[in-house]
C-alpha cells in the first residue's frame, strides 16, 4: 500500500511539470507585453527596452523558462510582481486566507446540503418532494456562478438590503467588539459561500441520491433485509458507505471546481483572494504572479487527486486488494 502511494506521488511529478510548462508557454504566447503597462507618451523606445531587460523579457523563451524553473525548484523563489515589486510567494500567501475560508465553508455547505438532501430524496424516490428537490438542484447545477452571484447581490443586497454583497468586512469592522466582528464576517461570507457552494451541493446531491438509490435497490440490501437486518442499519451503515464511495473519487473533481469557482466568486464579491489576485495579474500581464498562482493551482488539484485516490483505496477493499491497485 505504502509503495503504491509513493508510486502514485512520483507519477504525479511529470504531470505537474508538463502542466506548469504548458501554462508558462500559454501565458507568454498570449498577446501583450508587461512593459506596455508602464507606457506613457514621454517614454522612448530605449526606456521600454530597459524595462524589458529588467524583467528579463528580452531573453529567449526557453532561457526565461529554465531560469524561472531553476529559481522555483532550487530556491523556492517565484520572483517578484512586475506590478508592485512584491514577493510573489508573499502576495499569494496573503491572498490565500480569504480563498481558503471561502472554499472551506462552501465545501462544508455543499457536502452537508448535498448529502442530506441526497439521502432524503433517495428515500422518497419518485415522489413529488423528490421531483421538486431534484429539479431545483439540477437548476443550480447548470447555473453559472457569476450569474448566481449577481442575482444574489441583486436580490439580497440591493433589493432587500439584508446582506452585504462585497468585501470581507464592513468599513467600521475595527470599531466592533469581537462578537460584532464575527457576525460581520459571517454576514459578508453568506452570499459568496452560497454562490460557490450551491452548484457544488447540486453535484454532491446528484451523486449521493443516485448512489443511495442504487444501494437501496441492490441485491445485498434485499439479502440484508432477508436476514432481518433492521432498516436503520441498512440505511446508515450499509447503503451510506456504498453511496459515499463515488463522492470520494469526486473529491478530485470538486477541488478544482472550487478553485475555478472561487476565482469568479471573488471577482463578483470583491474578495481579496487568490482568484482575484490572478485576474488582476492576467489583465496586467504580471507573469510572475500568474505563474506562481498557476503552479499553486496545479499543485492543489494534483494533491487532491492523490488524496482522493488513497481514500478510495482505503474505503473500497475491492480496489485495495486488486493486483495493480495502490
Amino acid at each position, binding site marked *: 500500500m505504502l509503495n503504491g502511494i509513493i508510486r502514485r506521488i512520483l507519477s504525479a511529478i511529470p504531470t505537474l511539470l508538463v502542466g506548469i510548462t504548458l501554462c508558462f508557454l500559454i501565458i507568454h504566447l498570449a498577446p501583450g507585453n508587461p512593459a506596455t503597462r508602464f507606457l506613457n507618451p514621454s517614454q522612448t523606445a530605449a526606456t521600454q527596452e530597459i524595462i524589458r531587460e529588467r524583467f528579463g523579457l528580452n531573453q529567449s523563451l526557453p532561457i526565461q523558462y529554465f531560469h524561472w524553473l531553476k529559481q522555483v525548484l532550487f530556491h523556492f523563489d517565484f520572483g517578484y510582481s512586475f506590478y508592485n515589486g512584491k514577493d510573489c510567494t508573499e502576495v499569494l500567501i496573503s491572498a490565500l486566507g480569504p480563498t481558503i475560508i471561502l472554499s472551506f465553508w462552501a465545501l462544508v455547505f455543499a457536502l452537508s446540503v448535498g448529502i442530506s438532501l441526497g439521502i432524503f430524496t433517495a428515500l422518497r424516490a419518485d415522489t413529488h418532494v423528490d421531483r421538486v428537490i431534484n429539479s431545483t438542484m439540477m437548476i443550480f447545477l447548470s447555473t453559472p456562478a457569476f450569474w448566481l452571484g449577481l442575482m444574489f447581490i441583486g436580490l439580497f443586497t440591493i433589493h432587500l438590503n439584508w446582506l452585504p454583497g462585497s468585501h470581507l468586512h464592513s468599513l467600521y469592522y475595527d470599531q466592533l467588539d469581537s462578537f460584532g466582528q464575527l457576525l460581520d464576517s459571517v454576514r459578508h461570507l453568506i452570499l459568496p459561500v452560497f454562490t460557490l457552494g450551491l452548484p457544488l451541493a447540486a453535484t454532491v446531491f446528484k451523486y449521493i441520491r443516485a448512489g443511495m438509490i442504487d444501494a437501496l435497490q441492490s441485491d445485498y440490501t434485499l*439479502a440484508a433485509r*432477508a436476514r432481518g437486518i433492521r432498516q436503520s442499519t441498512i440505511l446508515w451503515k450499509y447503503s451510506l458507505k456504498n453511496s459515499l464511495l463515488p463522492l470520494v473519487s469526486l473529491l478530485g473533481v470538486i477541488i478544482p471546481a472550487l478553485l475555478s469557482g472561487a476565482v469568479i466568486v471573488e471577482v463578483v464579491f470583491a474578495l481579496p483572494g487568490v482568484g482575484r489576485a490572478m485576474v488582476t495579474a492576467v489583465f496586467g500581464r504580471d507573469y510572475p504572479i500568474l505563474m506562481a498562482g498557476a503552479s499553486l493551482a496545479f499543485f492543489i488539484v494534483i494533491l487532491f487527486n492523490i488524496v482522493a485516490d488513497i481514500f478510495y483505496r482505503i474505503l473500497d477493499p475491492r480496489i485495495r486488494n486488486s493486483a495493480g491497485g495502490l
Partner: protein
Amino acid sequence: MILLAVKNLAVQIPQQDKTIHLLKDISFTLKRGETLAIIGESGCGKSTLCLSILGLLPQHFQTAGNLTFYKNGVEIQLQDQTDPHFNNIRGSIVSMVFQDTLGSFNPLFRCGQQIIDVLKEHVSGSPIQNKQRAIQLIQQVGLNDAEDVFNKYPHQLSGGMSQRVALALALASNPDLLIADEPASSLDSMAKNQYLDMLRELKDKTNLALILVLHDLNDALRFSDSMFVMYNGRGFEYRKKSDIQKTPAHPYTRALIDIQNSLNQTRLPQQIPGEVPSITKLIPGCPFHPRCSKRSDICRTTFPPPTFFLNNHFVCCHHYFKSN
C-alpha cells in the same frame, strides 16, 4: 408440527391496461424439519414465491391470500407484504440464501462483520461471544480456516466459499425455516452435492425446515420430502416426494421426470415440446394445454380445480394419472 401454512397466495402487478398475475392460488404447508422442493422452469414464479414468504416483494406488487407462521404455540398471520409483522419474522423465523450469493454480500464489509451484524440483530451477546459464534457458524458450514474467512472481504471468496458463507449468514439468526434459491447452482455437480449433503446434515441436526428452489429434478428427488411443481405462476402438483417418484400425477411432472430419465441414461437431452409461456400472457383454461399430450377440449377452456389428497396435497389436472 406445522411451521408455515400458505393459503391461496396470489401476487399481481396492476398496470394501467391490465394486471399481470405472477402467482395464482398457491397453497402448501410446511412442517418443522421438512424439506420442500419447489420445481419449475425459469419464469414460473419460484423466486416471487420465495420473496413473498419473506415479505420482500417490491411495493407496487399486490398480494392476496394468507401466510401463517406457527412458533412456540403462537400463530402469526401475515396479510400483505407491508405487514409490520414481517420485521419480526425475517431472520428470526425465516431466512434466505439467494441464488447470486456473491451479490448478496455487501462488498465493503468483511464477511465476519456481516455475520456479526446479523447476530447483533437477533442474538444478544457480547462482542467476543458474537465473534466466537460467527467463527463457529463458518466452521459449521464446512469451512476449515474459519478465522481467515472471517477476515475476508466477499470478493476474496471463491464460488464454493461464497455459497457457504452466505449460508452461514442466513443461519446466523437461527431461523426455523431456510429458503434456498437454486442452492449451489453455480458449482459443479460434485461440489453441489457436497453442499446439499451438508445442508441436509445441518437440517437434521437442528430440525430446520427447508424450502429448496431447484430446477434439477434429480436434486429434488434426492433431497426433498415433498415437492411443489409450479407452472406459469400456479401450483400444478403438490405431493410427497415418494409418491411423485412412484406415480407422477400431473402430465407436466411426468414430462419433467421423463426428460430427467432420458438425461440419466445419457440419451440425447429432450425437451417438452412447445415454449414456456410468458407469465405476462393470459392463457385460457389449463396453462399447460398447448404443450400437453393428454389435453382434451375442456382443458382449453377451464382451469382444472385441484383434486385434494391427504395433508392438503393436490394435483390440478382434468385427466391426471391415478396411482393404482
